[in-house]
């Protein structure tokens, strides 16, 4: 009876003390088998799914990082153990070290710019736009790019940045800012094209996080500052930004983690080219494994990326925890 199936007829007048609609509701027939197995199924299916699509592939990846697996050997099932050879190949390749440099550029000017822009836009929106309806409309407009699938964003920006007759070059030329079309997809420029598209696509996410952080700051503190005589700039520099520090850090971490698995725009816009000048680590892992069939090496790539991001993010969280503790919040 403890499984909860025994409610039938147990109460003399079940309609007593409950709302009318509740007493008259359609009753779902239950029996012992359903009552016993529904909870198991509800918990079990998600766990099985998780096992199948996360845990199994992860273990599989760790295993093959130490094998000389490629697509051919995989189908013939005759791969063999090679120790750290895959890791050595990856770490000693210039393709990898180049991609780390690209990642650094992307983190600084892509992710970094996104967070800085997000701070500026979120605080400007909060301070300048007071009408609730207008605020909502602006927020929706700002968030729209984020709602588009990255593949669409990639195609969109590829069109806009087309050197011969793309919208961006056309606009820059007619404004007289450049005298000849910019070759957006040449070596050395293509990475910046990706960064531009990515900033357009993803600035809204840190913006939303920081905006909601600003909304939740206590208004009384701002009134106190007003009475104390602090002007807008001092309030921003001494009160708002320090109080938003943790929120900004979290917004940055979210985008930072994305950077390590950033594949979609690279794939759609440049495919890492020309001559691998716009490749990022995650993209190489994808390229080596899926398109060049070097599965063992791709797994090694993935593990290295995972290790790097794990170390950096752990340090970040430690710092965050220290800050929060200093303020006696956590």
């Amino acid at each position, binding site marked *: 009876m403890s499984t909860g199936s025994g409610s039938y007829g147990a109460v003399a007048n079940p309609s007593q003390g409950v709302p009318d609609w509740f007493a008259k509701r359609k009753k779902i027939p239950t029996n012992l088998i359903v009552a016993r197995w529904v909870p198991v199924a509800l918990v079990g299916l998600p766990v099985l799914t998780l096992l199948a699509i996360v845990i199994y592939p992860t273990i599989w990846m760790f295993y093959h990082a130490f094998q000389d697996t490629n697509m051919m050997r995989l189908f013939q099932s005759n791969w063999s153990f090679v120790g750290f050879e895959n890791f050595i190949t990856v770490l000693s390749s210039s393709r990898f070290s180049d991609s780390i440099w690209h990642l650094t550029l992307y983190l600084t000017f892509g992710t970094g710019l996104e967070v800085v822009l997000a701070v500026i836009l979120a605080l400007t929106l909060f301070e300048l736009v007071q009408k609730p309806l207008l605020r909502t409309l602006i927020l929706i407009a700002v968030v729209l790019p984020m709602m588009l699938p990255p593949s669409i964003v990639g195609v969109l920006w590829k069109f806009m940045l087309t050197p011969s007759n793309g919208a961006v070059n056309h606009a820059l030329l007619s404004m007289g800012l450049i005298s000849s079309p910019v070759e957006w997809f040449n070596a050395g420029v293509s990475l910046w094209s990706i960064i531009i598209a990515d900033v357009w696509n993803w600035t809204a996410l840190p913006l939303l996080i920081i905006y909601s952080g600003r909304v939740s700051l206590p208004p009384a503190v701002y009134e106190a500052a007003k009475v104390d005589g602090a002007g807008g700039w*001092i309030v921003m520099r001494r*009160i708002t930004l320090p109080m938003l520090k943790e929120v900004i850090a979290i917004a940055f971490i979210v985008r930072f983690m994305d950077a390590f698995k950033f594949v979609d725009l690279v794939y759609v816009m440049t495919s890492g080219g020309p001559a691998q000048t716009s490749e990022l680590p995650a993209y190489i892992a994808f390229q080596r494994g899926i398109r060049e069939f070097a599965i063992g090496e791709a797994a090694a790539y993935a593990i290295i990326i995972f290790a790097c991001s794990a170390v950096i993010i752990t340090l970040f969280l430690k710092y965050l925890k220290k800050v929060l503790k200093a303020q006696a919040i956590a």
Partner: protein
Amino acid sequence: MATITLANVNKIYPSRYGDVHAVKDFNLEVADGEFVALLGPSGCGKTSTLRMIVGLENITSGDILFDGKRVNDLEPRERNVAMAFETYALYPNFTIAENLGFPLEVRGFDEAERKRKVHRIAEIMRLDKILDQKPPSLSGGEQQRVSLGRALIRDPDVFILDEVMSHLDANLKFQMLLDLKVLHRELGKTMIYVTHDQMEALALADRVAVMDHALLQQAGTRNELYATPANVFVADFIGEPPTNFFDLKIMREGSSLRVVNGDASISFTPDKVCSAKLSQHGQDDIIAAIRPQHLHLANGADEDTLSAKVHINEYLGERSILTLKSGSQLFRALVPPHTAAQRGETVLLGYNPQDLMIFDKDNKQLIA
């Protein structure tokens, strides 16, 4: 140093469901160095009034004058007012020293001067041991002292204190009352204190302004409010335990006059002044009120008495409250502790006719 004048001040908050008239035709003069409390129940408009004085809220109509100078359009910082908030509103990311020094920092005081003043204020407010801590790690009382210290440090003309004790426990409250009283005496600044607690208001203020339903009901010293409340609301709101009210009729017996209820079980004899006013009153129905403090067990010397049955006898340590019943009317009397009155026992209560308050039944205003 400043006198504050509020002349016909109105505050209307527009809202989708119709305008909310939060403060109606508020008139009050606060003298230089005076300590005035704004007292009223929640939502009576006292905080709106206060925020208009500080400059955090626009004034819908009317004028606020500081020393005769209109300040309606001045920013808070230009009015030279300091405010302590109900929620303390400390800057959570600053240390206590930084919190205290912030008003000076904003005004461009140099580091050494700031440090000197912070230490002096910290000494006055007994904060010198926690200057390096941050607000979230302090107790409520300490936070409130920081908030007061921050208000004090820049030597403002006017202090505004918004329900600063509502989050403190009883012991801290008494300590804080004392601190505030001493501060006011030493500084001699104009202070306006908002509270819903009559004990705080009466203990601190030179004058108390009682508000209800957006209107100023009465402003006066505690004696005025206590002895001659302007209307039923003030009589009810001021005083603990609450005032007894009786719906009575005027009975004229030749030259003398009494107020009695339907079955004559309750009957009061007003004093001469009151009787004279009542005899000219056009209406027979009135509301009589007498405070529990003014009813005592009759000792034979009383001319005027009232008999009632004891309903409940509450012993509260330094005193006892008798809840009495006469007919269907319940009322209270404050008696010495250990009064041996059993439930159901009939007691005779004496009163001084001067303590009787009579109000108009329709407009609830004091007649005498």
